[in-house]
């Protein structure tokens, strides 16, 4: 579905601060697969995610979505098929807009923003039903500004928002890094539920090795801009935290 061919990305080229962020990356994401990327800081995980999102563009190589090259399509156009969850829930939602207005924006991810007020009761009902699925009673507060909700609530809402409209690929950038352990667990369970129920293709960057054991179909380990280890579904089943930890120690 999404294929990455020979991607290279170097920051500060030809300058003493040159960083080879990604080197000859090849990756093939099958439909309905959930890839988890791990790796130390500076290993290229975020660069890879930003390349897929269209925030930065590769120096060479191709990103193919259903065999169509998209590596030069900017982020606001890739939103038609790619949705994102940010590390910081404050970035992933608009604090001054009401909960309902945030969902209105989310619902227009795949099309142009029209001069039209969405007063549809069907839409409102859909938003309320979606929020009610969290079971936290937030559906009664849809006219409150997003800033009145906690980080955990906002991250859970941003998951609903990102997947409100159709999507082909979901990118999650350390979605629980800014949350307390209990909120982190709630958000990860929700993400996993949405991804498996909706049969989404997803990529998640994480530093939490526990996530690699509990979630996802594949694990990719990155090191110095390269994918150094791929653990596929069948091998992943037998993986223990001890083994995973040992892989990480190898790096040093």
């Amino acid at each position: 579905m999404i294929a990455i061919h020979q991607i290279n990305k170097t920051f500060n080229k030809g300058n003493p601060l040159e960083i080879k962020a990604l080197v000859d990356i090849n990756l093939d994401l099958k439909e309905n697969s959930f890839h988890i990327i791990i790796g130390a800081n500076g290993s290229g995980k975020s660069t890879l995610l930003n390349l897929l999102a269209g925030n930065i563009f590769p120096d060479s190589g191709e990103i193919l979505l259903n065999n169509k090259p998209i590596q030069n399509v900017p982020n606001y156009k890739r939103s038609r098929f790619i949705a994102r969850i940010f590390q910081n829930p404050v970035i992933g939602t608009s604090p001054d807009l009401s909960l309902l207005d945030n969902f209105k924006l989310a619902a227009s991810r795949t099309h142009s923003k029209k001069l039209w007020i969405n007063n549809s009761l069907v839409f409102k009902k859909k938003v309320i039903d979606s929020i009610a699925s969290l079971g936290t009673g937030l559906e009664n507060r849809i006219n409150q500004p997003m800033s009145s909700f906690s980080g955990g609530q906002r991250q859970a809402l941003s998951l609903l928002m990102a997947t409100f409209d159709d999507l082909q690929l979901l990118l999650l950038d350390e979605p629980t890094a800014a949350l307390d352990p209990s909120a982190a667990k709630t958000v990860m369970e929700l993400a996993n539920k949405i991804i498996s129920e909706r049969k989404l293709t997803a990529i998640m960057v994480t530093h939490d090795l526990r996530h690699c054991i509990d979630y996802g179909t594949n694990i990719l380990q990155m090191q110095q801009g390269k994918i150094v280890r791929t653990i596929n579904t069948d091998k992943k089943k037998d993986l223990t935290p001890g083994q995973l930890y040992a892989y990480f120690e190898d790096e040093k």
Partner: protein
Amino acid sequence: MQFYLTAISLALALSGLAWGIFLTIKIFNIPDITTDGSFTLGAVVSAVHLSNGGSWPVAILLSIIAGCLAGMTTGIIHTKLKVNALLSGILVMTALYSVNLLWLGKSNLPLLQTDNLFATTNPIFSFFNYQFFVLLLIVVLLFSKLLFILKSDFGIAMRATGNAEEMAQAYGVNTNKMKIIGLAIANGLTAFSGSLITQIQQFADINMGVGIVIAGLGSVMIGEAIMHFIGRNGIAAKLLGVLLGCILFRCVIAFVLASGADPNLLRLITAGIVLVFVGLANFSFKKSG
């Protein structure tokens, strides 16, 4: 009484400018001071068109278009050339001074025998203040149009652009284009105010825009303070607050001048009034937060 009616009329004429400043500073989070230039630009374009025998609807339309182009220029300099927003505004404002002078041909152009939005010969209108009601109608129209835009899907994308830019991009908003459009609308509104003022006072002056940005900023700040005290934070309340702020601001200035203050101190007094309201707002925010 007539004194305050004049102050309120002035405030209504300046409401476009105040809403323009509100758009840039509150919705887009961009400190844009193209305002001083685009306000005069609006006045100059209308004045030149009217003094050449043109009609007022065309004059107003040309002024708005000119203001939009000025705002777009600032927006393009800011987003495409990556120049700081404040500096982009200063550059365009400075350049506009020469453009305005060139267009006007001299530093002051009287508009005595020309067409004018506020001129009427119909006897029906002689019973009440025609100018005031025309302005009131304009403000109602502007308010409803702006409210419609800001509540639409397009407007929500605008508000997200200034509020959470990365998120807006992830949801399909071309934020650079949005900022250019926003600055165009804001300066179009400002130029519209310039056109109205020049028709009210029946002359255009090259210096009429100098320091006018404070009138808009003051209105926005006062409006924010008012709505904070009332406890309303919806987008309609915010727009209404700016209008009330604009009216209150003009009335306070009128009151100060009527009480015998030296007109030469007007700018000092204006800055003082804005400072008092900003200070009051921050003080009460701190207390309640």
